[in-house]
């Protein structure tokens, strides 16, 4: 895909911005991948909810 270079850069920036937060990194990258491959999907809410549930279960927040 011609825009791979940008996608790679985005991944790097996501890792920078969410460094030391593996669950968050993985979640955003997974969402990004889903958006890029399933653009315009109507069922996004269901998918997002499921992914939030899945990735937040391993995540620890400051409260």
């Amino acid at each position: 895909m011609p825009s791979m270079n940008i996608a790679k850069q985005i991944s790097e920036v996501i890792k920078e911005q969410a460094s030391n937060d593996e669950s968050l990194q993985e979640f955003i990258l997974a969402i990004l991948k889903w958006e890029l491959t399933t653009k315009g999907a109507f069922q996004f809410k269901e998918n997002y909810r499921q992914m939030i549930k899945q990735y937040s279960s391993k995540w620890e927040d400051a409260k």
Partner: protein
Amino acid sequence: MRIERIDLKNYRQFRSVCIDFGRSPKEDLHILVADNGTGKTNLLNAINWCLYGNEPHLSKDSQQLPRLNLNTLVQATEGTKEIVSVELVTETEGNRITFKRSEEYLVHKDRKQPVLHDINFTVTYLDDKKNAKWVIDEEATAYVERFVPRDIREFFFFDGERLDTYFKSATGQQISNAIFRISQVDTLNRISDRLESVVNDLKREAGKRSPQIEEIREAIEDKEKKRKEVMEQIAELGVQKEDARRKIDELNEKLRSIPNIEALQAEQAKLRETYKKKDQVRNEKVIDKQNLLFELGILLRLYPTLQVSSQVISEKVKNKEIPQTYDTRLLDNILITRQCICTRRVEEGSSEEKHIKQLRADIATSSVIARELLQMISPIEQIKKKISTFKSELERITKEIQLYDEELNDLNVKIQSIDSQIGGYNVEQVKQWYSELKDYQRIYDFNIERITNLKLAKERLDKEIADLNQDLNKALLKEAVFQEVRHQIAFGNRASGVVNNVVKTMMDRVRKAIENETRDSFFNLVWKKETFKDVYIDENYALHLIHGLGYECLGSVSASERQLLALSFVIALHKVSGFDSPILVDTPVARVSNEQRENLGKIFYQISRNKQLILLFLPTEYSVEISRNLDTCASSMRKLRLTKDEREIQMEVIR
């Protein structure tokens, strides 16, 4: 991506034309020469139609005509089906991808237009295992988006005239949109919006089970709504501010070498007023001088006489001849007593009496004259004094007049200098520009002030929303039943924050990368290396070209330099975006002088060494200045011409 072949069937004047774009080992330059109305722009339309299903460069005349070739339509029999198709065979990193759009028409002789019966769009490619695959319709459209996104296609295929006015139409907002699209920031923004929507759903669900949480949620929703409105206003005002700034730049460039005529005219009016006043005083001085000359002119003529008279009187005074000392009382007494001092009788009527009477009369006359002579001394002296000061008085007035003349002359020189400064300009036009400049500056300043205030309002709302979210978090923490949803909300919010930061970072990085690539390309290709100092893209995504002397010069450079900058920007966009498509330019040098054509010819040649370049020239455009640079290096060269009935294009392959 490079275009290997375009196959056109029944597409407008292209009844059956196949153009092969095989490249040379070093260059990838393809030239098509055709008269106006001979398919150049429709070739651009054909590519657009094939990839995106529309024809953005269609002329008004062509809009009235069916897409199906007219000869095919006329020669078709009633009820037959005819197909219009454009097939674009491309190559990307060794993979061949074919895009083909076709329309099937049903021909009815009693109707002017054929009836559209079927539409097809197919993309054929090889998968990882080198098996042929194809996708159709929506999937095919999505496939195109990954190669040359529709939103930014204007940065790939354009006509030469647009290239010249590129940065007038490609505003900061449009460039920003392109960078947005290229950075895939649109995807990130979509993620952010969707995360916000899902997190809000989670809050809403919690709110249904707790009035306190619902109250906080509603307050957050209200503030977020307000913040969105504020951000929309900031964006709108940002566009207005950017428009005003562009106008200010344009006007400043127009006015850079033009004096401020309004200010000069005001100065000239002042000078004329001063001239008028000084001229009036000078004229009064001239009248004074004339009066002086008139008054003293007569006296001057009498001066010798007066001088002699004065001398005579002075001598007589000196000789004590005047005033006279005769005592007439003795004579009067003789005449009364009739007796002389010698006792001799003076008879009435005698000669002695006559003599004494004559003597008495003579003495009287002589006394009057003497008195009058004495009385003359003072006026004569006054006149002499006046005459003696005449010269200095005349010199004084003359000097004053001379000074006024000098001043008036200086004023006149200044007035004329302003005339010459203003002369040659369309005064009304320049005044209009200055007036517009003032107006746009006012709009710009006003928008900056409003944006600043709105940004402060947004910061306040951010703080309020953050506080409310903390309140919500605390409220959720109080009850065990909300623990999971609270955790998910916090996770979603954190993810949203990270995504928003990624958006900002990516936008900045891509902007900087495009700026650097544009600068490198421009300075690598430009023929006047010392004339320009810098190229940069500002925070509002407006592109600036800086002259060696430090001023903004995008609007005042030659058409060819503007085209070069546009090409450099396009090359930079291609490189940074990874959407490395060909550049196709219709009438690339139509607005460029012969001398500059030579320069652009060299530039085209250099670009074609790294990128596929398809140039569609008019015969008059393809002048010797261009051809001597491109003839030998072009990978392919073709001429297009219309058949006699003007319904079909025939192609002649030169190379």
